[in-house]
């Protein structure tokens, strides 16, 4: 298998899941945990960017809060996206949530008998919980516990000068007019922002906030 991704992206902490559907149908040799790495998300999305990184971190942080020391279970997590599928980057982030948690929209798996239904576990809701933040709810179906994630994209730290350079280089890169040096500079700045979000995690609490929610059918 080829391995052409940047080494830094491989250092991002994976999200560990159990996947009962794969266990039941025999895709796994034995019961065990599956690691979903950030590289897997990059493969699904086709790229790494602040939005995809933020979606990964929103999901990871929410699941850590919901499951503590236990392993999250794919297919047993419902996700509500407080935005429209074609509004801004809500759809892009929802794809990452779906890929990681197994929660699917209307096109998802209908289940086998009473189990493994993934369809409609990912929903879009028009309500705006916070006018400044993109909001997402992650809810465990087994006990009803839920967390609300508030993501403030405008608060992600990045030096203004570098942001200007990035914006200046974007046009020649997109129109395939950039020199090799400009392309490298652009990629370096782009990945610097992504890696800062994923690896340094400094000041994450300023742009990613969690709050527990009382689930509708919560059981202790």
């Amino acid at each position, binding site marked *: 298998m080829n391995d052409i991704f940047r080494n830094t992206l491989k250092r991002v902490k994976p999200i560990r899941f159990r996947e009962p559907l794969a266990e039941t149908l025999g895709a796994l040799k034995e019961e065990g945990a599956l690691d979903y790495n950030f590289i897997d998300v990059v493969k699904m999305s086709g790229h790494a960017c602040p939005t995809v990184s933020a979606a990964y971190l929103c999901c990871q942080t929410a699941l850590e809060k919901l499951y503590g020391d236990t392993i999250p279970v794919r297919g047993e997590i419902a996700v509500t996206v407080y935005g429209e599928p074609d*509004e801004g980057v809500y759809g892009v982030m929802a794809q990452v949530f779906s890929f990681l948690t197994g929660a699917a929209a209307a096109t998802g798996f209908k289940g086998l008998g009473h189990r493994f239904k993934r369809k409609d576990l990912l929903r879009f809701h028009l309500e705006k919980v916070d006018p400044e933040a993109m909001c997402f709810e992650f809810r465990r179906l087994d006990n009803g516990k839920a967390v609300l994630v508030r993501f403030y994209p405008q608060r992600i730290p990045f030096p203004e000068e570098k942001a200007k350079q990035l914006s200046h280089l974007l046009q020649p890169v997109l*129109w*395939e007019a950039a020199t090799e040096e400009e392309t490298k500079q652009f990629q370096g700045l782009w990945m610097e922002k992504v890696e800062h979000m994923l690896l340094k995690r400094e000041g994450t609490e300023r742009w990613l906030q969690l709050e527990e929610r009382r689930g509708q059918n919560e059981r202790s």
Partner: protein
Amino acid sequence: MNAAKTIDVKGLDHAEREGLIFPGVEALKDGETLRIVVEFNPVPLVYLLKAQDNFDISYEKEGPDEWILRVAKGSAQEDQKGQFKELLTQLREGEASPETKEKARTLLQQVDAKTLGVLEQELIREGVSHEEIRRSLCDIHLEVLRDSLVAKRTEVSAPHPVHTFMQEHEIILDNLRELGSLVDRLKGLNSFDGMGEDLEKLEDIAHHLVEAESHHQREEEVLFSELEKRDIVEPPEIMKMDHVEFRKRKQELYQLSHRPREHDFNKFKARVIELGEYLARELESHIFKEDNIIYQIALQVLIPEDWERIKRLCDELGYCCFTPEDQKE
């Protein structure tokens, strides 16, 4: 009064239905009525016929198993459309004579933008290619329609999306005029050194041309998509084809301007002249068609609630670096 003729298209596929309905409608004479029997509510057809102004449309039966549409050709409208189509054909076939142009100008005093849009759709149905219409209408619009279309234009004010599009057009046109002048100066030069500040100017012009992609994106994803939902398909399709042609050339001009000295001067000069002259000519014509036909159709068929939604979606997609600030929010 003649007895109504009936065309029953139940059970036929889309192409077969169109093959019967449109010739049938076309053949109607003043005062005649055509009954069209369909197994579903033919909303797009009703819209299309209503857009032509010279038909009275009514439902004789509305479901549940069949719909019967009565299409009566009004006596007030003469065959203005037929005359116009004939003129289009003449103009398409070659250089129009002064008499033909004058005839077209007189006729066009009574033709509005919506009718023109319908005409484009009809010509395509009759087998004229998009490309042919694009070229022929370009000539016609620039040579004949300009005054009469501009005279009939509906104006809107900020922050209406059409106003924003038209303001952006003004800036793009200024940029094209600068490109035209630069190309003229370039024709007399033999080296990059002779270009002086024009090298920087060319990069700036090309930068603004590619910045206009955001304008095209808003048109295609928001405005044209609203028109397409209302079965106004062909005019936006022709504009989108233009965008594709412009994009290729803008990209090449942008690449040349960004790294000019990587090229042999004479080759650079030849390409910049060809691309510059094409863009200055064709983009100007395209803008004229959008201002005076597409936007005018949109202003006629879309309602205030549609425009509110369009404005919101345009705000979300974002604007060009040169869009005037007062147009953005």
